[in-house]
């Protein structure tokens, strides 16, 4: 059995439960939304940018937010480039699927929403590990809900997760050697009382 077959097997196992529990379908319908998790995570970033008690916390928080933002941009760029190189059909194009979401037309692999959610969570890991773990759990649920809803295979979500996490790690290394970049952004924002 190759990876693709295992992938499809796991997908079918998860997606088969659609329709069994109405409350679960409603919950997943909300979780899988293009808006709920991205908006919640973005509002959290805004609160971290403004909400701090002292200078040390301010520098750490705002650097973490920058890590998340640059991580999301990098992860999105990687996903777009990968989509140009190859196209993987969505599960509903290939299998009998119980669909809980609309039919996206872009490539299934890698999952862009998973990449974005995990990138933001990894940026927050730099600031607050407990909060980041909750965000990782939510991101995992977000990914899982896309499988349950019939729009992604498990490997799409795993690849999206890896891209999101690695993007932020790369940006963190980049910031370590090019400290002037976050400093320049923060100092400019502080000159206008925005950071």
């Amino acid at each position, binding site marked *: 059995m190759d990876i693709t077959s295992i992938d499809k097997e796991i997908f079918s196992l998860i997606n088969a439960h659609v329709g069994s529990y109405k409350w679960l379908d409603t919950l997943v*319908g909300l979780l899988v*939304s293009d808006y709920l998790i991205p*908006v919640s995570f973005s509002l959290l970033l805004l609160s971290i940018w*403004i909400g701090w008690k002292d200078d040390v916390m301010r520098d750490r928080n705002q650097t973490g937010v920058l890590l998340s933002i640059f991580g999301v941009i990098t992860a999105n760029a990687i996903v777009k480039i990968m989509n140009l190189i190859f196209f993987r059909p969505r599960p509903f194009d290939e299998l009998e699927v119980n669909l809980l979401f609309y039919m996206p037309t872009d490539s299934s692999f890698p999952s862009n929403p998973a990449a974005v959610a995990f990138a933001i969570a990894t940026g927050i890991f730099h600031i607050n590990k407990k909060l980041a773990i909750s965000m990782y759990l939510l991101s995992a649920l977000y990914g899982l809900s896309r499988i349950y809803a019939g729009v992604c295979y498990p490997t799409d979500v795993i690849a999206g997760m890896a891209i999101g996490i690695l993007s932020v790690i790369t940006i963190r290394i980049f910031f370590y050697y090019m400290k002037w970049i976050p400093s320049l952004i923060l100092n400019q924002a*502080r000159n206008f009382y925005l*950071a």
Partner: protein
Amino acid sequence: MNLHLEYFILITLSSAGVIQLSASYGSLTQILIAKSKKISIYIGVILTFCPIVWFFHQGGRAIPDTDGGVPGFSQFLLFGAGSILALILTFAISSITNHKNHSYILENKPGLIGLKHNTYLQLINNSFGVGNWILQALTKKSSH
């Protein structure tokens, strides 16, 4: 109302709420709309969560981009625009409501920390000489 506009309203109002909550936590008292910290927290909670309930009360809004949904990049731009508008509104309203409260303690450090003691308008006026006439008008009004 189309989804783009609804999304923009959601972001603007919720961002304004988050700004109030975060400013309360960080004691940036001069961008709090209400004089009492407790009331500002209530305003923050209402402004943050009511738009979310309003936006999602019909479910997850699963609408494809080709049928009026908001694509990822547009979401990114609209979030930026909505949160900037929320900041501008907060700075404008709090500069008026807190005008009389100022203690004019200028921090040596630049940045949001200055909003612990001065309104945004006072800080901008002090640094760049912007908005002098607004400050004068406000001072005139409060002295009458």
